[in-house]
């Protein structure tokens, strides 16, 4: 059994070397020289470390409440774009079934910090930066995704991920972009790939386009190769040990500094029985019922709250 597990792990790790161009992010961070990460010479995929993935069958993503008012991107537009980005990935056809990962759109959050706390509630958020883009040298990034994961108990288990959209310097479009605009759907579709556990790749054998041209919408759809990667990481028959959609330590719309410290319940390590709306599992032919359906439920809930 042990050798089978090792074999499967190796298969998974070297999947990209077998003809696919996608790369999985791993616990080995190539930006740290001391980790001596080994890279595939063809794809530049990281070959060392444990591949990252979400252990649960469901995660929740929240959008920053005020979205991007200066850029005139409303919360509704932002949520719709986020929804389309996730749906473009999660509607993948994995040999007649859907990937074993559901994404729930949660309530909007007031916190605008990309952070993870070991002692507070957390949230996977999409943030729009309009005032200051705080990354020195990264001023030209249209978006940044930060992924946090376990290094000790369950190495590679993703705990938290946030997407930051640069609305400071980049003209964003939520409809059909003009020649100089950045297509928000394209940007988010790519960042969502990171949030799902994928890294970058250089693959000379690929027929895929070399870059993103202003005004282009071609990146809205993950490639066949990308989706093959998704099906490999989240196969329909994946053994899921956790079903809760809640972020690690539970959800809060507040930043860590505004919360009281988190006290872990005794049974936190057990499988959560309190599914928060994620009991439905995607089936072939039910495209659009996944994330879009959940968005609809969230919208209904919001309308109901407003009416109260």
């Amino acid at each position, binding site marked *: 059994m042990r050798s089978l597990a090792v074999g499967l792990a190796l298969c998974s790790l070297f999947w990209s070397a077998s003809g696919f161009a996608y790369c999985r992010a791993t616990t080995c961070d190539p930006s740290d020289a001391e980790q001596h990460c080994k890279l595939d010479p063809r794809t530049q995929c990281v070959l060392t470390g444990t591949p990252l993935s979400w252990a649960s069958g469901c995660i929740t993503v929240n959008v920053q409440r005020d979205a991007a008012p200066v850029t005139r991107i409303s919360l509704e537009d932002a949520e719709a774009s986020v929804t389309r980005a996730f749906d473009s990935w999660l509607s993948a056809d994995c040999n007649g079934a859907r990937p074993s990962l559901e994404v729930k759109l949660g309530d909007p959050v007031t916190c605008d910090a990309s*952070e993870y706390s070991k002692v507070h509630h957390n949230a996977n958020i999409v943030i729009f930066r309009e005032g200051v883009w705080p990354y020195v040298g990264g001023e030209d990034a249209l978006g940044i995704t930060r992924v946090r994961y376990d290094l000790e108990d369950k190495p590679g288990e993703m705990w938290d991920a946030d997407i930051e959209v640069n609305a400071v310097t980049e003209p964003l479009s939520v409809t059909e972009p003009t020649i100089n605009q950045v297509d928000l759907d394209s940007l988010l579709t790519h960042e969502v790939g990171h949030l799902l556990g994928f890294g970058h790749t250089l693959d000379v054998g690929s027929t895929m386009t070399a870059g993103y041209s202003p005004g282009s919408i071609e990146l809205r759809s993950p490639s066949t190769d990308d989706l093959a990667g998704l099906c490999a990481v989240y196969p329909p028959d994946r053994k899921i040990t956790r079903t809760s959609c809640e972020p690690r330590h539970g959800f809060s719309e507040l930043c860590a500094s505004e919360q009281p410290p988190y006290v872990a319940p005794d049974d936190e390590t057990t499988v959560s029985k309190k599914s928060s709306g994620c009991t439905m599992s995607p089936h072939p032919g039910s495209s659009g019922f996944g994330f879009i359906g959940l968005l609809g439920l969230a919208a209904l809930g919001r309308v109901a709250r407003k009416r109260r």
Partner: protein
Amino acid sequence: MKRRSFLGCVGAAASTSLLTRAAGATLLRGLSLEELVERSGFIVVVTALDSQSHYEEIGGRRSIVTDTRVRVEDVLAKAEPADRELLVRTLGGRVGGVGEIVHGQPAISAASADVAFLKLGPDGAHWFVGMAQGHYPLVGQLRADRTLVPSAQLPEIRDYERCAVRKLSGLKLIRATELLRAAVRR
């Protein structure tokens, strides 16, 4: 340049710079060579000595960063650093059982020398300009053969056709240095 060398150079540039549409790549606006040079305080060849991750306040929030101490081997253009050792900071790292990856950061190798386009941040550390666009590992053992290749993990780049990565990838270090100094003079 002999035809064979020229074709080799073009081939190397093409083979090393053709980027796939990466899975979920961080999207960067491509910097032209002139922009990359203009924004850099130092354009140097460095080798990594050691690195350390810790929390640092960025934009008012605690973030994991990795500080890599590098030795400056050569100054290609712009100012000469006051010290032969610099502290280069990148986003992400490992602290207390938590790992954090920020895609688009340069993949610094301990085994090779790298061309680094750096700027000094308000935190006193040096940062790569344009993230991985400002980082080019050198391949080739002999000094005359050293060639720039794109940073591993280079993210998706907007305006790729006009960007510095395309111009510099596959160039011999000597030729790249000429281009950089010409860009400084402009």
